[in-house]
């Protein structure tokens, strides 16, 4: 079997994970859009995920563990940048770790701009450009090609709908167009679409806006959510379509939001064979610098 064919599922998973950049939280009126795991949230803020860890099996035999770290900094209240990278560990044989290998994936930088905010309608939208650097990581882990990604984000809370049972809900979405810009390399250079949707139920919103049930903190700060992540090839491929198949991945879990940090955990459910062959997991520890250090790192550079 050609090496590229054997690596194809891993490349797909790596490409999926590589699109999961920038996990800032966002506020629109009374709504807090929590940091999500499969897609970015629609806000710009001073935050970091330290780390975001996922565990998936792309082929039912090997397991890929991805640890992403990222730091996001505001330049103005609506404009920010982020830097990050991933460390991947691929265990090809669970009984023999000598067959495992690991290393750094493509590092990336991102510029993100929140172009629309409606506190009254709990609506927020941003756009971003992300540049990843393909040959700056570890051989056999990094993609081998640079990629420019143009992204759009939105978040909408249902708090302005006059029907209390659905007011704690919110949806967020992301759409990316990923453009490799250093030519074909190692059979992985192809333009792709990626993105996803989330449905969130905010218990903090329920408690503070609709009905205080006197829940204990561990429940009162919880936001259960469902995420759908997706990738697919775009345009003509120089490769066989089976080398870049469409993937659908479902995440179900919750985010616990504290004053200065958030913790999240989700179960990952591959919805088709190309997205994996076993149930996986994803979670993160997330710091809010705008609340943790509001007079230093947490303040936009324009206000220093």
């Amino acid at each position, binding site marked *: 079997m050609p090496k590229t064919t054997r690596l194809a599922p891993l490349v797909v998973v790596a490409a999926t994970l590589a699109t999961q950049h920038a996990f800032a939280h966002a506020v629109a009126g009374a709504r807090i859009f929590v940091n999500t795991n499969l897609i970015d949230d629609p806000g710009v803020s001073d935050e970091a995920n330290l780390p975001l860890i996922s565990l998936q099996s792309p082929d039912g035999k090997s397991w890929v563990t991805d640890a992403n770290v990222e730091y996001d900094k505001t330049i103005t209240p609506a404009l920010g940048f982020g830097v990050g990278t991933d460390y991947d560990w691929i265990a090809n044989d669970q009984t023999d770790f000598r067959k495992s290998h690991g290393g750094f994936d493509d590092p990336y930088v991102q510029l993100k701009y929140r172009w629309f905010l409606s506190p009254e309608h709990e609506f927020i939208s941003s756009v971003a450009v992300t540049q990843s650097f393909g040959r700056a990581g570890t051989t056999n882990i990094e993609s081998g090609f640079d990629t420019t990604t143009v992204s759009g984000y939105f978040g909408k809370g249902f708090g302005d709908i006059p029907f209390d049972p659905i007011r704690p809900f919110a949806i967020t979405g992301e759409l990316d167009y990923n453009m490799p810009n250093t030519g074909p390399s190692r059979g992985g250079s192809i333009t792709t679409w990626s993105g996803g949707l989330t449905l969130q139920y905010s218990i903090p919103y329920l*408690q*503070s806006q609709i009905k205080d049930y006197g829940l204990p903190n561990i429940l009162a700060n919880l936001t259960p959510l469902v995420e759908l992540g997706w990738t697919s090839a775009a345009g003509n491929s120089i490769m066989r379509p089976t080398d870049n198949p469409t993937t659908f991945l479902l995440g179900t879990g919750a985010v616990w939001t504290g004053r200065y940090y958030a913790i999240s955990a989700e179960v990952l459910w591959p919805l088709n064979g190309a997205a994996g062959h076993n149930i996986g997991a994803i979670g993160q520890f997330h710091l809010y610098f705008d609340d943790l250090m509001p007079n230093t790192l947490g303040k936009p550079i324009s206000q220093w």
Partner: protein
Amino acid sequence: MVTAMRWTHWLLPAMLCMASPAFAHAFLQRASPPVGSELPVSPSAVTITYTEGVEPDFSTIEVRNAQGARVDKADPHLLGGDQTKLSVSLPKLPPGQYTVTWHVTSVDTHKTEGRFNFSVTP
């Protein structure tokens, strides 16, 4: 050794930043009357306790009846000097549903807002 010294140069200011007083967005922690509550008698005030201190000069609480008319006494003030407790006085309210809308600026200038209802039963 050199590497360790370089780290300490960064670590010390970082630890000082962590140790300095930190303030965050002011979100509603609890309210009196409670969010979504039904009261047998008219409350004398609406008091909101926030997760962080707020600036009273840049913070408001408005209470409106079901017809949208403002019914509070427009006197937002800190309760007992506690910067986390903002209160507004009320006249005796007739039975009905009331909407509380608040906008606050926390002591570190973060702005937050919210809205909730309570009702006075006949």
